[in-house]
């Protein structure tokens, strides 16, 4: 099946935004990211030191490479691997019943516990990465395509932030119930 070229264009722009922002948050506070990574309890201690730097670095490289047509395929595969790793790590912890650990996705000021919603969110992003690897129908992009692609990207990024905030809100509300 071939898809319209606008779809991978939008997908790559949204994924690029997601990864660059995520990497930026991690660089800002590496100490805290190390703690988050430790809490996940999926990595042996020797690899921890490497991954603390490798994950934000790979995220940043993928985020930028997604914008360059030549490196699109490689970066889409990279993004897919990263997202699959996150899904795996979250799923393992959820299965173990460790629901209160911070997901490490929202930076320092936004704490967000891991949940099924997060897996779903990453699943959608993984689907976007998949869209970048499928065959594209050969159609010249006209100016209108670019306008729509840009607007759709803005909407996509907004939705991403809305979903994140909703997940945070769910945690906050649960916290409130525990007080009552």
């Amino acid at each position: 099946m071939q898809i319209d070229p606008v779809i991978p264009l939008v997908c790559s722009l949204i994924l690029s935004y997601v990864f660059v922002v995520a990497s930026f948050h991690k660089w800002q506070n590496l100490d805290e990211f190390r703690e988050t990574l430790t809490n996940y309890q999926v990595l042996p201690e020797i690899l921890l030191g490497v991954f603390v730097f490798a994950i934000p670095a790979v995220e940043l490289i993928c985020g930028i490479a997604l914008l360059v047509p030549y490196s699109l395929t490689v970066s889409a595969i990279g993004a897919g691997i990263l997202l699959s790793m996150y899904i795996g790590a979250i799923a393992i912890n959820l299965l173990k019943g460790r629901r209160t650990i911070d997901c490490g996705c929202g930076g320092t000021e936004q704490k967000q516990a891991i949940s099924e919603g997060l897996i779903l969110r990453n699943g959608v992003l993984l689907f976007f990465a998949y869209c970048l690897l499928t065959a594209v129908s050969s159609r010249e992009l006209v100016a209108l395509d670019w306008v729509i692609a840009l607007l759709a990207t803005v909407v996509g990024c907004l939705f991403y932030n809305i979903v994140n905030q909703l997940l945070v809100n769910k945690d906050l509300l649960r916290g409130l119930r525990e007080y009552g």
Partner: protein
Amino acid sequence: MVETLIISNILLWIVVVVMGVMLFALVRQIGVLYERVAPAGALMINQTLTVGGEAPSLDLQDIKGSLVTIGGVPENGSSKLLFFVSPTCPVCKTLLPVVKSATKSEKDWLDIILASDGDTYDHQGYIKEHKLESFTYISSEILGRSYGVSKLPYAVLIDEQGKIASMGIINSREHLESLFESKERGVASIQDYIKTYSAKDKDDDLSTEAQ
């Protein structure tokens, strides 16, 4: 005809973007509301100590080598705040300015002591980095253990009679202030306060109804 469709399509996209922005703003506001509504009190988790009980009495050396007495009735008649930190805890770092400002604003009645454990060398770097030279800084594992501290940053407020006035995990300025507040009002914790307060409200309602 096609032109009309194009214009209408772009207009619709713009509307979707605007609505997305509004939706995000709304969701964010709900989040802020949840945060504000939550009672900003330090959560008490302590199996060793009880509020109102005697604070464990210990004679310890601070990092400069001078002797510090924790617990018991203090000679200068002021209360003591034990603030447990660690150089490896990121939240502690963000709270140091709050502790510093509390030292100034509460100096009439309160002595603040920073407590931690582990390598002395780490602590000296920590003190230097965050300019904590003016604090009494104790590095002692026994202190943390005898005060039942399991999570950081943690604070224990000991009143002028050497009794535990309040304690809890401190994650924000509000949490620290809630310790002072609960000492002043004589309630153990924010959970306690809400419980007694709502019970009193009910009593009041009943008595007005009876009249």
